[in-house]
């Protein structure tokens, strides 16, 4: 916990997930081309490219907001904050920071681990991770928007809003039940 989390990680330019989807996309594209003709191929290509182009400024903004928040909001401070709050307020604060903190799994799970070390309970950790995965803006801006468009994403997030708190409450009940039996 004393080691500061590395700011940036060396990332490979190639990953298997992208390669698999690229292969699938290429065969699907070829199938459409041979089966339905070049006109249909171009129609699909054009509409998806337009959606992608429309979302690019938002993706770039998402990346920049994420980078600035990472630099401006020291994770140590967040961990102390979440660790010291308890009760329902603790769940709310954990969920709020799940929404605010950017980053992928490599950076977010160590932060959640630091919350534990600072005294946060399992409920707060669960609320934090659930909020980060379902409501977090960087993920929505950078990944979800280009794929689904803003209408779908906004409604999906609205419908996910109660879930982090609910998961936190459930985790507290479950943790208490497990400890009571011991």
């Amino acid at each position, binding site marked *: 916990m004393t080691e500061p989390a590395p*700011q*940036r990680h060396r*990332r490979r330019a190639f*990953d*298997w*997930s*992208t390669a*698999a*989807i690229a292969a*699938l*996309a290429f065969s*699907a*594209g070829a199938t*459409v081309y041979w*089966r*339905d003709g070049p006109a249909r191929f171009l129609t*699909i290509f054009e*509409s998806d*490219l337009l959606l*992608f182009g429309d979302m690019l*400024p*938002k*993706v*770039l*903004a*998402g*990346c*920049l*907001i*994420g*980078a*600035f928040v990472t*630099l*401006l909001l020291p994770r140590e401070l967040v961990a102390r904050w979440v660790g010291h709050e308890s009760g329902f307020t603790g769940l709310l604060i954990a969920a709020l920071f799940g929404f605010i903190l950017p980053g992928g799994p*490599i950076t977010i*799970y160590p932060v959640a*681990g630091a919350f534990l070390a600072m005294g946060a309970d*399992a409920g707060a950790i*669960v609320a934090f*991770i*659930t909020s980060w*995965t*379902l409501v977090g803006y960087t*993920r929505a801006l950078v*990944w979800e928007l*280009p*794929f*689904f468009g*803003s209408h*779908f994403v*906004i*409604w*999906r997030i*609205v*419908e996910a809003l109660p879930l982090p708190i*609910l*998961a936190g409450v459930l*985790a507290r009940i*479950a*943790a208490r039940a497990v400890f009571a039996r011991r």
Partner: protein
Amino acid sequence: MTLAINLMLWLLVGALGLIAGYRGRVLLKNGLRDGAMEFIHLLPRIAIGVVGSGFIAEVLPRALIAPWLGPKSGLTGVLIATLGGALTPGGPVVGFSIGAAALKSGAGAPQVIAYSTAWALYAVHRLVMWEVPLMPPRVVWLRAAVSVPLPFIAAALAMLLAKP
């Protein structure tokens, strides 16, 4: 609406940039560089996924998707989607491409929401690869266990609100 979102986001970028610049030029430079690097890293992945999901949707058999995952598939569709989400391996490109392709080829919005919620919360592959090595296992399993009903709740809310 997309213009309003863009405006709001870039105002936020401007405000954060100002705060960073006020605290020091190095901070501003680092923020801009990190954000730009992330964007360049993600660009090809998102492009392949977004354009690819359109073609994948086109070759998926609609006749099969509609009864099993369509808007009228109800709870069965949500259950299948949730299981599918939990078992989808790989990174975000895979999950979002599959979800978008399903939506384009006739799956219902609540079913797709259940899929992406389950995949985001407890894709087995990610729990084992990422979360268990970095977190105390008992917290990981507790989180996974309490997350089991969440895709169903999200889908139910989507059905109640009848949106998107």
